[in-house]
């Protein structure tokens, strides 16, 4: 049993469990699944500014900040208590593609060549962490949703706007992966 928990979970277990977040939030609190709105609530709660976008009662959205706090705690539990410490096993063709880009450390969830503090102020580290993070925040707010709010909740509601957003996610992701990323790492 412990072995089953500590091994990586296959998609046919993890996917349906993520899908169950949708009815869990609806049944427990009549809330719609979504994570990226928390970035807005953090700004509204913590950063003094004059923009209309942040003039609302963020306290009424406290539940979603608590949800995000739970995700942080869950990340800690999953990594500290439920991990078998083995290397992540990804497709051999991805491994060789990434090795051509100079990535050779596959021992954690992220390539340590890019995600380390010495690298943060280098061009590649700055682009990945600072620009990448900025685009995630700006883009999800402009699109009014992220992978959870649009891809999972939105597509579950058969919402055409969410499908358009998800197509946008893939256009951007493919462009970055195949055209821009090889130039910057």
């Amino acid at each position, binding site marked *: 049993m412990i072995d089953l928990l500590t091994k990586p979970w296959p998609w046919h277990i993890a996917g349906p469990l993520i899908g169950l977040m949708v009815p869990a939030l609806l049944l427990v609190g009549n809330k719609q699944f979504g994570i990226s709105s928390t970035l807005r609530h953090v700004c509204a709660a913590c950063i003094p500014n004059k923009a209309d976008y942040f003039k609302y009662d963020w306290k009424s959205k406290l539940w979603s900040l608590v949800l995000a706090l739970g995700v942080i705690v869950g990340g800690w539990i999953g990594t500290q208590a439920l991990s078998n410490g083995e290397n992540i096993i990804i497709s051999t063709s991805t491994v060789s593609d990434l090795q051509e880009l100079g990535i050779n450390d596959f021992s954690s969830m992220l390539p340590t060549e890019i995600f380390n503090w010495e690298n943060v102020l280098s061009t590649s580290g700055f682009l990945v962490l600072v620009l990448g993070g900025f685009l995630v925040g700006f883009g999800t707010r402009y699109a009014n949703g992220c992978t959870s709010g649009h891809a999972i909740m939105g597509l579950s509601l058969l919402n055409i706007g969410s499908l358009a957003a998800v197509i946008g996610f893939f256009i951007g992701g493919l462009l970055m*992966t195949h055209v821009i990323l090889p130039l910057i790492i």
Partner: protein
Amino acid sequence: MKHIKFLFIGILFGIILVKSEVISWFRIQEMFRFQAFHMYGVIGTAVMVGALSIFLIKKLNLKSLDGSIINPKPKPFNKIGNVAGGILFGLGWALTGACPGPLYALVGSGYSTIFVALGSAILGALVYGILKNKLPH
């Protein structure tokens, strides 16, 4: 305290994100290179279960714990905003290897440099909020 139930749901979500390796930069690269089914399987089955759940909730007229009627509203379709914002987010997703949920789960997992990405994401949301009225939607 009334929000503690959301803490538990978040904890479960965080554990699933870690255990399914959805938080891995490598898995996102694999997805955008079409070299494994994993991420498509995760997102695809999540949507199927989500859609089936909503169908059943409506069919059975299930109510929320507080007794309110469950009637989730689809987000409005902003043609330019959804697509342009989506593309910008996609660029960032493939760079950082993380969407917002995994950003939080990675911070909890102890990947300290992700604080930089999360801080930048909050800054990105702030800049969007300031520029919102000047952007086409």
